[in-house]
């Protein structure tokens, strides 16, 4: 028995053994603490995915893009694009930030395109500048979230594409939320695009929405404004080719 506690009035209190805990009580303690631990780990994972890994991968993708920016001859010429992950263009979207840039590669597989490079071209769609629909995908959050701010695009915005030999400037048309199965948005005559006509040169950006819920897809359509071997005046700081 332990030494007695002394109350202020001088009373001595002797503590006896506590009643033995039941098996149920012990089991509930382990169950409860395990569940709490799971909750904390899930919270940590969300933080990892949304912030830490997102930033790290985003920086790697940006550095990779800068390498190509400095050395345009590394781009695969559009006519030669064939293999998954062939890098053939660099994308600039001023609305996403002055320093935002990503490479565009062939195919939309997460690995090795969307996760490592950033933006992927749907293989059965047209190439930049062609009549039809040049469609690309990018992650919304995590893995550098190439199209994290896709919902901010609006009238007057432009997307700039730099390839080995040519600049392409696309102008914003429309944003739409669709089901993941609505692949008609990728058609040469995009399904759901108001004012689309045969012979149009369109570009489609697709990404997941809502961010980190990913049950639907957000689509942004643009149309070719012009193409030029000259660097567009507003892109001069990103180098000519």
């Amino acid at each position, binding site marked *: 028995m332990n030494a007695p506690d002394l109350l202020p009035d001088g009373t001595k209190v002797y503590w006896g053994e506590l009643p033995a805990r039941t098996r149920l009580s012990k089991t509930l303690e382990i169950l409860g*603490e395990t569940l709490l631990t799971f909750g904390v780990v899930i919270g940590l*994972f969300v933080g990892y995915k949304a912030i*830490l890994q997102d930033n790290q991968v985003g920086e790697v993708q940006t550095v990779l893009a800068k390498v190509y920016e400095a050395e345009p001859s590394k781009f695969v010429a559009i006519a030669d694009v064939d293999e998954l992950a062939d890098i053939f263009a660099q994308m600039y979207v001023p609305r996403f930030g002055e320093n935002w840039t990503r490479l565009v590669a062939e195919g*939309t*597989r997460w690995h090795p395109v969307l996760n490592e490079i950033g933006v992927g071209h749907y293989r059965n769609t047209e190439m930049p500048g062609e009549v039809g629909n040049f469609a690309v995908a990018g992650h919304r959050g*995590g893995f550098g979230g190439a199209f994290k701010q896709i919902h901010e695009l609006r009238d007057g915005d432009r997307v700039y594409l730099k390839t080995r030999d040519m600049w392409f400037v696309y102008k914003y048309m429309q944003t739409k939320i669709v089901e993941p199965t609505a*692949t008609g948005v990728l058609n040469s005559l995009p399904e759901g695009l108001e004012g689309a006509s045969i012979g149009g040169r369109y570009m489609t950006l697709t990404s997941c929405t809502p961010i980190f819920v990913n049950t639907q897809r957000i689509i942004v359509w643009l149309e070719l404004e012009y193409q030029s071997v000259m660097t567009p005046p507003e892109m001069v700081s990103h180098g000519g080719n």
Partner: protein
Amino acid sequence: MYSWLWRKLPGPWPVKLLVTLMLVSGFLAFCYYIFFPWLDANVFIEQENNLQ
């Protein structure tokens, strides 16, 4: 579980606290460097034939 662990740790409470912090750090390192990247690569996988 955690109270059992606390009782099993040796030494006075500052030592127990130090060992606990080390265990927690080790667990976090395991999560961030091994478990989370694995989870990311194997659990959240793409659906083919859909819009990406």
